[in-house]
């Protein structure tokens, strides 16, 4: 089963080329039907995202199949296929398996661990299934790739830590407060990034949300979007006393939340921490506030530092994920080998059983007076001989499949026992 994966990705091809090759669903369907219907490929899946355009296939002549597939993809936007040919990478057999696993597990992604790719691979697979372009080989490969991706996600932490500033802020809030549900949030200023961070907090159950902004209309608009309450600028101090998390993003030239203001508020708070997320440049919150007990303040640089640390963490985890994928590839290859030798073993048994039964029948026809005991003995004798003869070749086939060297053995067995062409 000559399996291959070929394509271009963010690793080797510029965005301009990737967007020209990317095909929409209808186009992919059309190409899949051409390729598989026309007999170029026995099975095919086309994965087309903004970061990669890849063809996974099973073909008797993989090189040719690859060329035809990409000629199709190039034709849709009039790209010279020669310009793509040079960039294409091709993985065959074990390499193709590894590639499929790594892509699905988000190890080959631009941002390692990003969650979208698995969904995209699943969609591509479903699309190919819809076109009847998926056969047993790609079916096994992709189902296993999904399982591997799931294992990587749950057993390593490549996807666990925030890699955007707004998510990093939410993650920090989760490490300060026992739970975010019921935490009151104050938005100072109505910047896009603070709105995003507030949205994440609301999704985690933060409530109520107060919005303070110089422009009253904008405060009201944002409050509506977040199901919160707009508060006049003059009442900022009161609002400050009532909340747990403050997100600031005003365009003020100097700090508007001073240490004195916060010190006054902290006294009445008891044990509840107060968390400032200051996304504004210049900063809205005086850096001195984080010397106050129970007050934590992160500005944009601090958050970026957290993001950087998290990315390093992901890369470390990716090493573990790669080892996991490697083990899965080995397992999969062994299973694939078994899948390939089993039909031969079955037909070998059937062939010899056919011969044995025929010969026994012939002999018994010549011995009409044979007692039931004699008949049984004949059956047992012949069955015993067949089993003894079969033992060595079957063991050899299983062993060779585990070693990945079963192809030539399969051919030999077919030839020797006259089993006919294998599928």
């Amino acid at each position, binding site marked *: 089963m000559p399996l291959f994966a070929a394509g271009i990705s963010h690793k080797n091809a510029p965005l301009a080329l990737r967007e020209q090759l990317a095909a929409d669903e209808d186009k992919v369907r059309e190409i899949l039907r051409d390729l598989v219907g026309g007999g170029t490929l026995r099975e095919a899946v086309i994965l087309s995202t903004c970061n990669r355009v890849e063809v996974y296939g099973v073909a008797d002549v993989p090189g040719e199949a690859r060329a035809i597939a990409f000629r199709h993809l190039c034709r849709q936007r009039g790209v010279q296929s020669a310009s793509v040919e040079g960039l294409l990478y091709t993985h065959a057999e074990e390499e193709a398996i590894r590639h499929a696993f790594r892509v699905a597990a988000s190890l080959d992604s631009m941002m390692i661990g990003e969650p979208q790719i698995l969904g995209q691979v699943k969609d591509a697979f479903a699309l190919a299934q819809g076109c009847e372009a998926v056969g047993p080989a790609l079916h096994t490969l992709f189902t296993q790739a999904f399982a591997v991706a799931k294992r990587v996600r749950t057993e390593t932490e490549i996807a666990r830590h925030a890699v955007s500033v707004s998510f990093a802020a939410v993650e*920090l809030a989760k*490490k300060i407060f026992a739970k975010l549900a019921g935490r009151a949030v104050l938005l100072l200023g109505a910047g896009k990034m603070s709105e995003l961070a507030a949205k994440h907090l609301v999704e985690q159950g933060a409530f109520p949300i107060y919005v303070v902004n110089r422009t009253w209309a904008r405060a009201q608009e944002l409050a509506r979007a977040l199901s919160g309450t707009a508060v006049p600028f003059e009442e900022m101090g009161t609002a400050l006393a009532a909340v747990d998390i403050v997100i600031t993003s005003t365009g003020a030239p100097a700090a508007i939340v001073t240490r004195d203001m916060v010190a006054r508020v902290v006294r009445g708070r008891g044990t509840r921490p107060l968390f400032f997320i200051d996304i504004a440049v210049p900063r809205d919150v005086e850096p001195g506030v984080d010397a106050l007990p129970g007050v934590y303040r992160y500005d944009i640089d601090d958050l970026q530092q957290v993001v950087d640390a998290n990315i390093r963490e992901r890369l470390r985890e990716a090493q573990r994920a790669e080892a996991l994928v490697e083990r899965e590839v080995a397992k999969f290859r062994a299973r694939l080998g078994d899948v390939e030798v089993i039909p031969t073993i079955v037909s070998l048994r059937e062939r010899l059983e056919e011969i044995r039964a025929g010969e026994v029948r012939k002999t018994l026809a010549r011995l009409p007076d044979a007692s039931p005991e004699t008949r049984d003995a004949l059956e047992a004798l012949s069955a015993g001989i067949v089993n003894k003869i079969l033992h060595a070749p079957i063991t050899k086939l299983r062993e060779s499949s585990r070693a990945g060297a079963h192809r030539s053995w399969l051919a030999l067995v077919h030839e020797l026992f006259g089993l006919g062409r294998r599928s």
Partner: protein
Amino acid sequence: MHPHLQNIAIIAYVCAMGLALAHLVQRQALVHRLALLATLVGWIAHTLALVVLAIEIGGPPLGTLPHAVSVVVWVVVLLEMLVERQSGVTVLGAFVMPVVVVLSLRSSVARPATLAPVLGNAWIWIHIALALVGIAAFVLNFAGAIMYLLQERQIRHKRPGRFYHRLPPLQTLDRWTYRTLALGFPFLTTGLILGAVWARTAWGSVFAFDPLAFFSLVAWVIYAGTLAGRAAGGWHGRRAAYFAIIGFAALVVTLGAGLFLPGRHGA
């Protein structure tokens, strides 16, 4: 029989400690499962050891301080497993097991003393049992305080490091130290009062030549101060955590004094 089982338990606890610490750094789910397994094996061996011991001496193994400390360890390990299971804080073992190991080693190297003949009154068992539950709660209190300080340090210094993702939120840890303090304190107090009353009737003096009684009073004063500070003064966070550690240090000195210095508590 008892020493063998006790040794198996200690070896298992040492393994569990190593694995729990490795899990803290390595974050392999397998390492964590092995740590849990080692803890459980140790605890079962420990349970059997205590049962055998109780049969051998024909009563609860609380009569000498080394035995009593061994029971504390047993209670702590049980609580650790339950709390870890309930709260899902998989790193708890890394903070509790070292304490467990230190206490088990201490109790096993101390000379087992013969019991003072005056011991025998039912009150004395209640005194010991209450004090032990109190100490067990303070081991967890100590572990919570250490975790709090580590986590708070990382968040305050804006350098989320190795343990940032592993440790529970600050507020949870703060509540944890408060609860374990509030739980341990009444037990310790009642245990101490019973001990004092009993000592007075037996020896005519509350602190007669006993280092353990003296140091346990020091620990009690520290914990009482912390509890008062938390309940009335609004103490929390770092300050409360520091006091939890100081209180526990006093407790360790107390047990050390009881195990290694001559006095009424044996040895």
